[in-house]
């Protein structure tokens, strides 16, 4: 951690707002810690006249970071009312990132669902190339994120396949949940898997991959459960003796299964 304060936010200006999908918006924000962000990490965003929420970083550029956020509750609803130029607050980055060192150079399968493409985006760009397969699904075509980047990824050799739960007249691609994109070759042709998306999607995808023979310690997920303080103190993300925000949010499936044993209530 740098000399920047992990407790006090720094003011951050909204440089640009982009509406990615109905109810999902990306904010490009100034942040002095932009060069410390690793793929899979999050920051704490202060919403004016509300409180702080933990959001994973979906993009990094010189002097700025991008956060891709879904409007789901009180704080995010208030956030969506702030215009470009508005001042928010940021501190971080926090959390255990994707194990890039381990994944680099291996054949990696990334399975993302819905907003799950946001915490994986930096990783996807980092690993982009012929060794990367990206399977991405959303509820319907309008909810597919970062559509303008698909061509560039394919050009770099990424095996990118899309699916939607329900299509529309213009949709020509696969229809079905993202697990329908997995086949018998999937496991034999990849060394590691990275899964991110709604809890139920991660659960079923991970389950399918394990059934197909991929070992649990080679599957990585991001459990963005209910994090609040982001620094392992407030207790809300605790499962057993692990804190999702500080011991995670990235965990191997093997670690998650161990947590499941110890936990009270849901892990997923």
């Amino acid at each position: 951690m740098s000399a920047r304060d992990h407790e006090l936010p720094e003011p951050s200006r909204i440089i640009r707002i982009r509406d990615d999908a109905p109810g999902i918006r990306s904010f490009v924000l100034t942040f002095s810690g932009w060069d410390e962000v690793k793929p899979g990490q999050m920051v704490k965003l202060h919403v004016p006249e509300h409180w702080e929420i933990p959001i994973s970083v979906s993009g990094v550029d010189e002097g700025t970071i991008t956060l891709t956020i879904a409007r789901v509750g009180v704080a995010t609803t208030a956030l969506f009312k702030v215009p470009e130029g508005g001042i928010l607050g940021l501190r971080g980055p926090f959390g255990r990132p994707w194990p890039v060192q381990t994944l680099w150079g291996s054949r990696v399968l990334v399975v993302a669902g819905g907003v799950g493409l946001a915490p994986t985006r930096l990783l996807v760009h980092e690993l982009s190339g012929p060794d990367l397969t990206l399977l991405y699904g959303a509820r319907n075509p309008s909810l597919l994120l970062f559509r303008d980047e698909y061509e560039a990824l394919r050009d770099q050799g990424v095996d990118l396949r899309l699916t939607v739960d329900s299509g529309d007249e213009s949709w020509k691609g696969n229809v079905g949940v993202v697990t329908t994109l997995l086949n018998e070759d999937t496991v034999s042709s990849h060394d590691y898997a990275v899964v991110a998306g709604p809890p139920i999607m991660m659960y079923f995808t991970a389950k399918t991959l394990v059934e197909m023979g991929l070992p649990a310690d080679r599957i990585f997920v991001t459990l963005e459960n209910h994090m609040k303080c982001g620094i392992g103190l407030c207790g809300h993300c605790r499962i057993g003796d692990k804190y999702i925000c500080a011991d995670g949010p990235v965990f191997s499936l093997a670690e998650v299964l161990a947590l499941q044993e110890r936990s009270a209530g849901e892990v997923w």
Partner: protein
Amino acid sequence: MRGAKKLSWQDIVSALKALENEGYEVLSPKKNRWGDWLPERWIPDEAPEGFLNYYFPFLKEAVFPTEEPLFFLHGDRFLPYDPDSRKRAFFCARPCDATALAYTDHFFMGRFFPDSRYRARRRNLFVIVMACQVPCPKSFCTAAKAGPWARKGFDIQIYPCREGWLAEALTSRGAELISPYADADRDDISRARRELERGFPEEVHISRHQVKDAELNEWLGLRCFRCGACVWLCPTCTCYNQSQFGKDGVKREQDPCLFEGYHRLAGGASLRPTQAERMDFRYECKFGVGACVGCGRCSVGCIGYAAMEAYFERKGSRTT
């Protein structure tokens, strides 16, 4: 432990006066006109007779308050609120609370990110424990190894015994404070400990690895009336929620895990939608990382019948 000293009441008074001279506000238990014990500015002529413990965990409150403003937006900058780290010395703190303090020290300062506010207040908190002669109602501190004398979490620990008081220090500033007084034998202290332990029944067995007991959780869940007292009274509870303070500020406040809202996610789903699951979460924590010290407060404050007393009674043992 450093050293062993023999103290008279006058020695204690002069030690506390020395602390005052160093700029500490010395706080000591005082019973008010309605019979409640509260920490007040220490007055040299009184020894607190009949004091068991503060009902409210004032020692924890001094380093981790129930509610605390954190920062606010001032123009285009975020400014922290002052953490209020005035020098305070607690005289007659109890072993359970000191043990709890050692736990919260580790929790707030010894893990991922040290909490600067806690640390600022902790540095200026001087703890003088008076080991206990009488168990508190519904307590089981001996089983939790947090009583009747403290193993950790204090600067000085004083043992009442037949010939007056014995004292030992855990920190160097504690050792320095009692250095002027007469030496005693370490064996004297051991004897004082055994003597005190005789007054404390040991009927509770705490296992740090609790087996999931769905029936027990269900039973307790039906009798939890969701007041949050067990959290606000507990010297080792540390969970908090961040919320709006005034118009432009943010505060944190202790957040009971027995509440459904604690476990609710932004979209409305819940990680632990039933009271039984929340009871499980709490007990798994208290007997695990949460480090229950057996002070008994939760059982006194519980408006239903779902605190430690109920837990142990259902398991076949009994607190004090």
